């Protein structure tokens, strides 16, 4: 899960980023309105966390520009403004959720996961794929009913795969959704992560589609 975090406060921005990374998310932090708008228009994100009061461009302007440009990524507005009139205005501009500061990290994570899940077209919070289950509410994976321990990168890859189970995900898109914008990406590292995941959940679950990408299969496969 790669998140665009737009927050201009020099302390709060990094603090939220740390909290989101602790929940296995890849986070790009933008402190300036113009940067934020540009990132949202050019990079692939699973969701954006958007502050409304920003230097050089307001959150509402950025959101309106994204929507006008056809960007459909889920946007959670995180603001100090708690009036319903502000909330109504944010939703009119195209927000998908609204959280007021101060907030709790669990609340933010829960809402972000719900946004990403709904954007992937899942109505239920629990996504099942064969023996594998993803509790999108908490971000926990289960294998055969037992909790599955994953590293941050493993979690990012597997959550992408299970949200679009049975669908081929382009290798490049997977890379984009797993690594932060300024990360030094080794072209082989994705294969390394996939390899580790296959050892944990069964090699046949993650299918390599030559020249395209990867697919998580849920049906009973011959052993």
């Amino acid at each position, binding site marked *: 899960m790669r998140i665009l975090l737009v927050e201009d406060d020099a302390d*709060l921005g990094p603090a939220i980023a740390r909290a989101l990374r602790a929940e296995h998310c890849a986070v790009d932090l933008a402190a300036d309105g113009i940067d934020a708008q540009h990132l949202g228009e050019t990079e692939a994100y699973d969701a954006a966390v958007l502050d409304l009061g920003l230097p050089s461009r307001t959150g509402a302007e950025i959101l309106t520009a994204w929507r006008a440009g056809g960007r459909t990524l889920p946007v959670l507005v995180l603001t*100090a403004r*708690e*009036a319903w*009139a502000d*909330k109504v205005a944010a*939703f009119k501009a195209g927000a998908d959720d*609204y959280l007021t500061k101060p907030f*709790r990290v*669990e609340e933010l994570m829960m809402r972000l996961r719900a946004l990403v899940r709904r954007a992937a077209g899942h109505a239920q919070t629990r996504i099942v794929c064969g023996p594998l289950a993803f509790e999108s509410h908490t971000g926990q994976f289960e294998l055969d009913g037992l909790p599955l321990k994953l590293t941050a990168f493993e979690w990012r890859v597997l959550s992408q795969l299970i949200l679009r189970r049975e669908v081929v995900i382009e290798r490049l898109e997977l890379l984009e959704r797993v690594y932060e914008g300024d990360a030094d990406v080794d072209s082989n590292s994705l294969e390394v992560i996939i390899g580790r995941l296959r050892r944990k959940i069964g090699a046949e679950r993650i299918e390599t589609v030559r020249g395209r990408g990867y697919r998580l299969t849920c049906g009973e496969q011959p052993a």
Partner: protein
Amino acid sequence: MKRRSLRARMMLLSALATLAALGLAGWTMTGVIARVVTGGVDQRLDAQLAVLASVVRDDGSVDRARLAARQGSLAAGPGWRWRIAGPRGTIGSPDFPTLRTPFPGHAGAEAPPPPLPPAPLDGEDAKGRVHARQLVLASEAGPVTLTASAPARVIGQPIRDALVPLATAIVVLALIFALAAWVQLRFALRPLAALVAQIGAIRRGERATVDEDQPAELQPLAAELNALAAANAATLAAARQSAANLAHALKTPVATLALTLAPDSPAAAQLRRIEGVIRHTLARARAVAVNRRASTDIAPIAADVARVIGTLHPTITTRLAIPPDLRVAIDAHDLAEILGNLLENAARHARTATLVTADTESPERIRVTIDDDGPGIPAERREQVLQPGVRLDEGPSGDGFGLAIVRDLLALYGGQMALGDSPLGGLRVLLHCPSGR
């Protein structure tokens, strides 16, 4: 004097003027009456002097036979006396009063030569003060002084008799003047009382300015009051803004702290208290600027809010049954706050559906209901959930706090909120809102 009321000051002034005018009138009239009465007595005394003069012969002696014949026309009432004093002796009434010499030279060597015209002369006898007239005749033997006197009470009594009705009339006049002044003052001060009522209405937030269509003397006062009210409103708005700014500015650092503290630590509990204070301050800052003269169409606001709820709670169906152009006297911003909090609460507890209705309850009241098909709140717990902050620290979104905010906000506009059972099976929130014109 400074602390006395305007009415008392004006009444005092008017009373002093009335007293002076009536006193002057009384004094003048008493003088006129005294002159008229004295004149009458003087005429009678002069007539007696004429009788006395007719019995004095040219040589200064008295014609006694003639005197005896005419004595009847000389007044014989108690206190009426006469005397003829000449060079050949003096005759007259017994116990003739002692008279003061009218002027020093009259009976002495320097006396002007007779005859002298009748002149007034006052004196006293054993029974009291007397009023006399004296005439000096010239005779061959020398001057003959004729004197007729009357008791002073024949002058004093008629004056005293006239003074009683006069004084009564003056007192009655004074009362009429006082009453007239009081009525006049009441009438003149009535615009002032109206102005006071309007200022009271401003303080209660029922109006923003006083009527500037005032009598000429009050017009500058009304204009100044309006300028003051405007300055006051600006100060209030600035205070509200700075309180809101302060609370607002605290939110981000509090959010940062909350992220770095362990949720179960004592410091985190203190931080939640700070969050409570921030919310309270913001709610109170908002309350200062309540505009009771607002008029807001309910339907578009409810539709906006319902759209937000639809996005936040995609599994809940929200239905609106609100006639077009139904207006409440609540600021659009605050109406969004009221409906938003209530509908969010309803959607959070609903199983599948919520419903908002509005209709005209009376010419002054609009009834709004917010229903859900959730579990509802048992009657005995309804009062409890309206206590502000009771459930502030429970649940992720300060569950329940919204109801108290809505009730207090609505009360600022003169509206009421009640909780009941919904026909949908859950909670019904019933609002009685002031109608907007």
